[in-house]
């Protein structure tokens, strides 16, 4: 606990302000309606990671902990990232074609796409 003695309310408040600013940033990124959604995705995920780091480093005092934090968190985070990544080739991208109601409906929408039936496409009009 002595490690945290040099943490002042000031630091916490600055972190808090940074978190608020980052939140606003991600909302703004959404409202900007950029042409390429991938950029928005990248921005908001980067913002989320930055916020998470702020919370973990300062609010959760990880900055001031000793080496055990790496032993505990590194495998956890690797696993947490690896889980969706390893499921991606199978569930996220289909090696074998899907044949369900939804996939047929999507194919129909794609075929109708030229005539302007974008009922479930992103419109970015909000």
């Amino acid at each position: 606990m002595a490690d945290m003695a040099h943490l002042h309310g000031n630091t916490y408040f600055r972190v808090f302000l940074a978190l608020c600013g980052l939140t606003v940033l991600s909302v703004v990124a959404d409202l900007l309606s950029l042409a390429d959604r991938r950029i928005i995705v990248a921005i908001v995920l980067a913002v989320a990671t930055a916020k998470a780091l702020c919370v973990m480093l300062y609010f959760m005092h990880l900055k001031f902990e000793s080496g055990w934090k790496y032993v505990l968190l590194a495998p956890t985070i690797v696993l947490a990232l690896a889980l969706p990544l390893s499921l991606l080739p199978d569930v996220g991208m289909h090696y074998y074609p899907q044949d369900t109601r939804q996939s047929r409906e999507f194919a129909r929408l794609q075929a109708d796409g030229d005539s302007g039936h974008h009922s479930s496409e992103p419109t970015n009009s909000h």
Partner: protein
Amino acid sequence: MSATITPPAVSIPPGDEMHAVHHQPGWIRRYIFSTDHKVIGIQFLFTTLLMLMVGGALALGVRWQLAWPWERMPILGDMLFRTDGGQITPEAYTMLFTMHATVMIFLVVIPILAGAFGNFLIPLQIGAEDMAFPTLNMLSYWFMWPAIGCFMLSFAYDGGPAAGWTIYPVLAVLPQAAPGSGFAQTLWLFGLTFVGFSSMFGSINYMTTIINMRAPGMTLFRMPMTIWGMFITAILQAFALPVLTAAGFMMLADRMLGTTFFIPGGLVVNNAPATVGGGQPLMWQHLFWFYSHPAVYIMLLPAMGMVSDMLACMSRKPLFGYKPMIFSMATIAGLGFIVWGHHMFTSGMNPIVGMTFMVSTILIALPSAIKTFNWIGTMWGGKLQFNTVLLNCAAFVSMFITGGLSGIFMAAVPVDVYIHDTYFIVAHFHYILFGSTLFGIFAAIHFWFPKMFGRMMSDRLGQIHFFITFAAFNCTFFPMHLLGIGGMPRRYADPYHFPYLEHLLPLNQFMTYAAIVMGFAQFILLFNFGWSIFFGKKCGRNPWNSNGLEWQAPSPPPHGNFDVQPVVYHGPYEYSSPVSGENDFLPQTEYMPRRPDQSQGH
């Protein structure tokens, strides 16, 4: 570290004095809702031995159907299937193997290793008074009972859950898919969730205890292999189990709240209206095996650790390659997280991913091989004590070799395409889970029984039990390899109406006879266990002349375990050390003079 510690001037007082700071709680707090790790461990042991009988009985039901299909099953059939005239129906058969696996995995093997031996041994072997969170520890035992309740209650609904222990969707998600996919399956999932909570409490407790509560001088590389096994198991459990719990919640939501995580759209199951869907059944398989493959190691690593300890003690020889053993265990755990896909080679997964899983699966054979060689190296040149403990440990090694080698067939994807879901798989995992783990558990029961109850188990009965079990086990499970090569699929209520499987009937009957013998042989163990609690030969603190810290405590250890805080000076495997003089053992609490030629193990 050891250089800074000087030998203590204390001697262990004789007798069973209580530790001064621990007052004895009342009877209920002491034996029922106890927070004492030893009582909880013994509670787990009794519960799991009871469940072992239940699981064994279910297995005999499965074996009966395979040997004499559609015939009235005496005793068990009359009890369970009275309405069908004691005959096992196909629905009942699916229930039997589902519940056999469920009981054996979730209520026997995992809790007996982590719950019973983990609880009993961890504080004793690291020199702590108790677990880090005794109340949480108690909860982890008492969360077992709602789980047992849910599992047992599920028998009452439509003949029990019948989607296999892997509960693959869509079969397990849609109630109309099978008679057993109704409320019984929901109860089963609740049971799984409770088991999950129990294991999670346990694993957090074990990790905290092992990290933070070791006795002075007990460095990480002086811990017995049992502790290493338990530690790595706890890590596996802590990081893999939440995924299964999450997936279990998703499936429960699919069943009860109308969500569609695992249900594709447009399926017409049993003439019911087409499913709404949108989800993917393959996702369940991934999430399930993400836990359940590490679970295989959760069911094995503690036994590996305990066998390493017992083999060293019974060979009166230091463990061969202590650090390689630890590293190989850690490698198994690490690789264990990235091999789950080998359960899914035929499931329609991306073949490129299958290739990756194949390589990691083959790699995991390597640390297993290293461990085997080290165990044989431990026995080599040892002064073997041919008692029940050593015999069971040697059986562990022998069966682990067999089970490990048959695993190579499954790791090779093309071969797995043929033997997947055949009896070859059944043979393989019974060689690991029964042959290895259960023989390890038998050994551990005989080895630590004196510490638990202050009395010895009968070695003669133990050897008779081993003799019968070992022979009957191999007669039951070795021919299963041949059934698998013959192309006999798993989970068939009646394989013999396929002409190409007809000739396997006599072989199956032989295996069933062996299984019945094996089942009844367990009564010898239970008798020996029960009888010895009350009438066994009394023993002192260290009947096996073992080095571990647990043997420095009185037998049975009082509340608070040690009469003096033990201080550790060296590793647990200093058997037959030249510095130990007349004795061939050197307890961890005894100072060991350093010799210039010594390089490891202190």
